């Protein structure tokens, strides 16, 4: 790929954003970095897994916060040598990280394998059941947590300072963002989108539909586990309430606020959520109209309603809408209904597959889901 081809507006914007994220600690307050931005990176990564499953797989998952929590619990169990609760394995940081991610990914694979044969509202309900069961598992099994959770979780030395934790969050977020975009263009990703759009046709072409869904869920679980690790380092503790229904829905709300069709929306939604949580109560006179800390969820609910009405594609979709109004390049975002997006217009599919990289059309693969050729040839064939 030529350097010129890399100089797209999207790539330049991404590079500029990364520069801003790396430079911002020099100008912003310590609290803003340690609290607002670090939380944004953590929640953004977790919400991006919801976007990934919805955008490429047509699966709206409520189990992502559970997997986020599994990583945190497992790290706490592995890292602590002495503690009031948990296994207290006393392992080193890398062994604990490996253990946490391995367990989380394995759990995601198992849960994904069970859920892969369901779609739409049934998938949503099943993942909700996972979230509820997970909450009770950690609340009831005192050997790994119990109701009071794991406290005094140590941070590995490489994230010992708040600033280093923030930078690790930024780098991992960038990797996750680019990684998910890249996956969407791989043979697996294209096949997954084919499964999203027409599973029957994909199955008839010989693709193993449940396996594609399972592996997508597993990948999303792996990434949720990474964000869960950052969270347990940031928070120093995790308990069953951390993965209860309230926070589970909050993560979905973050994805909705940002826009479930856009990966960048995950971080934008997280940023908006954390900003509102942190600063809304400090606005002058805001308490005079009854908006106090106790009304935080009400405000978030109103914002979600407004987003759904004014911009169903979320905050990240607003710019796209403006661009379309001004007659710019059109781009159709995937529908985010629980039945999964179903494109019928070939141009739409092209834009989805190519994911807003205009130069992509001149380079290649050109295959679209359902063609059974080109890049899809490398998909996972059913046995």
């Amino acid at each position: 790929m030529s350097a010129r081809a890399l100089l797209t507006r999207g790539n330049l914007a991404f590079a500029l954003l990364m520069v801003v994220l790396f430079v911002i600690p020099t100008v912003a307050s310590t609290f803003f970095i340690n609290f607002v931005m670090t939380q944004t990176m953590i929640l953004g990564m977790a919400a991006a897994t919801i976007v990934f499953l919805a955008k490429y797989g047509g699966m709206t998952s409520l189990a992502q916060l559970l997997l986020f929590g599994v990583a945190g619990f497992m790290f706490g169990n592995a890292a602590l040598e002495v503690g009031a609760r948990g296994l207290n394995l006393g392992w080193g940081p890398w062994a604990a990280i490996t253990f946490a991610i391995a367990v989380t990914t394995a759990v995601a694979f198992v849960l994904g394998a069970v859920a892969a044969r369901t779609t739409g509202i049934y998938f949503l309900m099943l993942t909700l059941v996972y979230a509820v069961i997970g909450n009770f598992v950690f609340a009831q099994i005192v050997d790994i947590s119990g109701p009071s959770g794991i406290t005094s979780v140590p941070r590995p030395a490489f994230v010992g300072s708040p600033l280093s934790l923030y930078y690790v969050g930024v780098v991992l977020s960038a990797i996750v963002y680019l990684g998910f975009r890249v996956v969407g263009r791989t043979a697996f990703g294209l096949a997954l989108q084919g499964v999203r759009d027409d599973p029957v046709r994909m199955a008839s072409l010989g693709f193993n539909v449940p396996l594609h869904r399972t592996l997508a869920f597993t990948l999303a679980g792996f990434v949720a586990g990474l964000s869960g690790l950052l969270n347990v380092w940031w928070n120093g503790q995790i308990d069953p309430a951390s993965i209860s229904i309230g926070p589970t829905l909050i993560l979905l709300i973050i994805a909705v606020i940002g826009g479930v069709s856009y990966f960048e929306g995950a971080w934008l939604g997280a940023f908006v959520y954390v900003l509102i949580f942190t600063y809304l109560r400090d606005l002058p006179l805001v308490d005079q109209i009854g908006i106090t800390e106790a009304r935080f969820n009400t405000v978030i609910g109103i914002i979600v309603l407004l987003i759904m009405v004014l911009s169903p594609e979320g905050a990240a979709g607003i710019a796209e809408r403006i661009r379309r109004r001004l007659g710019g390049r059109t781009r159709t975002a995937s529908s985010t209904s629980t039945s999964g997006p179903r494109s019928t217009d070939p141009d739409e599919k092209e834009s989805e597959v190519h994911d807003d990289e205009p130069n992509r059309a001149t380079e290649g693969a050109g295959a679209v889901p359902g063609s059974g050729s080109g890049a899809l040839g490398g998909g996972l064939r059913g046995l």
Partner: protein
Amino acid sequence: MSRIERPKVRALSLAVGLVLLAAGCGGYSDSGGSGAPPGAAPADDGTVRLGILGECEGPFGGFHEDVVAGATFAMVEHAGATVKSRTSALDGFTGAQVAGTPIELVGIGCGDDTADRILQEVRRLVEQLGANVIIGPLSGDEGIAVAEYAKSNPDLTVFAGLAGSQEATLQVQAPNFFRFYGDGAIWNAGLGDIQYNKEGWRTVAVIADDYSFGHTSTAGFIADFCAVGGQVTHRVFPPLGTTDYSSYIAQLPDPDEVDGYFWAVGGTGTQASLEAFVDAKGNLTGAQHTGNFFFNPNLAQALGTGIAGAYVGGFAALPADVRTPQIDEYLASADATWESLAGALSSNQPAPPSVTAAFGFFYGYYSAGVALAQGLTAVDGSIADRAAFHAAISDLTLDLPYGDVRLDENRSGIVDVGISRLTVNDTGEVVQQTVAIVPGVDQTFGGTFGPDTPSPSRDFPRCERRDLPWTGKAIPVVGGAPQR
């Protein structure tokens, strides 16, 4: 993989490698495990910047006014503050000063009974608003989380509000976290002794909420009851938030198989669990049931007067029937400070402030505020030397309306506990009548609990006979007057 993806995949691989390289192969950070940035507390300019941690959401959301009012009242009484509103403490106060050091209220945190949320709130108060002294939090798991946070912020000073988890002081042992009241176990000290020696119980079954406070509250009763020779036959722990208790009641022995039952089920579960017992095993009798402070006269309104006769554990304040000149003065002063307060006991409707002030939620935070004021007095208002300030606080003995409080070596309160009984008054109503004050209770229960023992749990403590310092030393209370 097509040619298009290769450069990006290479870039990703390079980035991952760089992250791992940057990470190095070190061990763990020594900055503690609260997630708090070390040194988050702002530079000291001689002013006490106070943050109060309450709960405006969750199961204790109704007590927000109570707890903020408690801390505020301490500032009014002991620091010369003036309340901004005569009907609510949530509007804050002005003019607080001790030994020339101003006390400025920088913010009120809004918890929801979860550790995650209270950590966010305390970080906001300390790292954004610059609080260097915190009063709070309210509940057990919150207390553990905030104690951990304090441990990693040595320049911060935390006076626990009403968090009743034993672990917050006994295990965490943050040198800057102080609790001038009892924990959930302490509040049941003496109850087992009374049931064994006065009521003749020899065996008991316990049922309690399955979380830190339920475990701790039950642990206090078990330690006390077993210390004098009693036996615990069953331990049942329904999850917090259970609505149908029938399956848990089924795990309890029948009334003819055990001498008594101890209950530590709170919130909406109190009544639901007792009703499930009535449905499955017959009527409740005061002679066979006892409980922690969740057992209160309100139960009788729903369950009938059969519960009269039951003994009830203590709380931060003594029951309302205990009156001394000091208590009367304290309540009168509260009434003079506000016209009304919308506390939890009055269903968050305006009521005389003394109603709220006599309740443990207000009083726990009040005790913390008094400790702050007296700690400042002890160091002549200078908090520049935090170690000296903390040492002075550790040495305080507070002369409080409901009894003196001093701290043990883990900076947790050694307190007097009031044991009461539900009785029927002349008008046929069930009321709470104090029967004894158990003096000088500390959280170790004569060695039952310590830094090296497990935290209270479903199966800890074990039932063991032991000499407790307060056994047999309860001070009788007759007509609300301690017979000291």
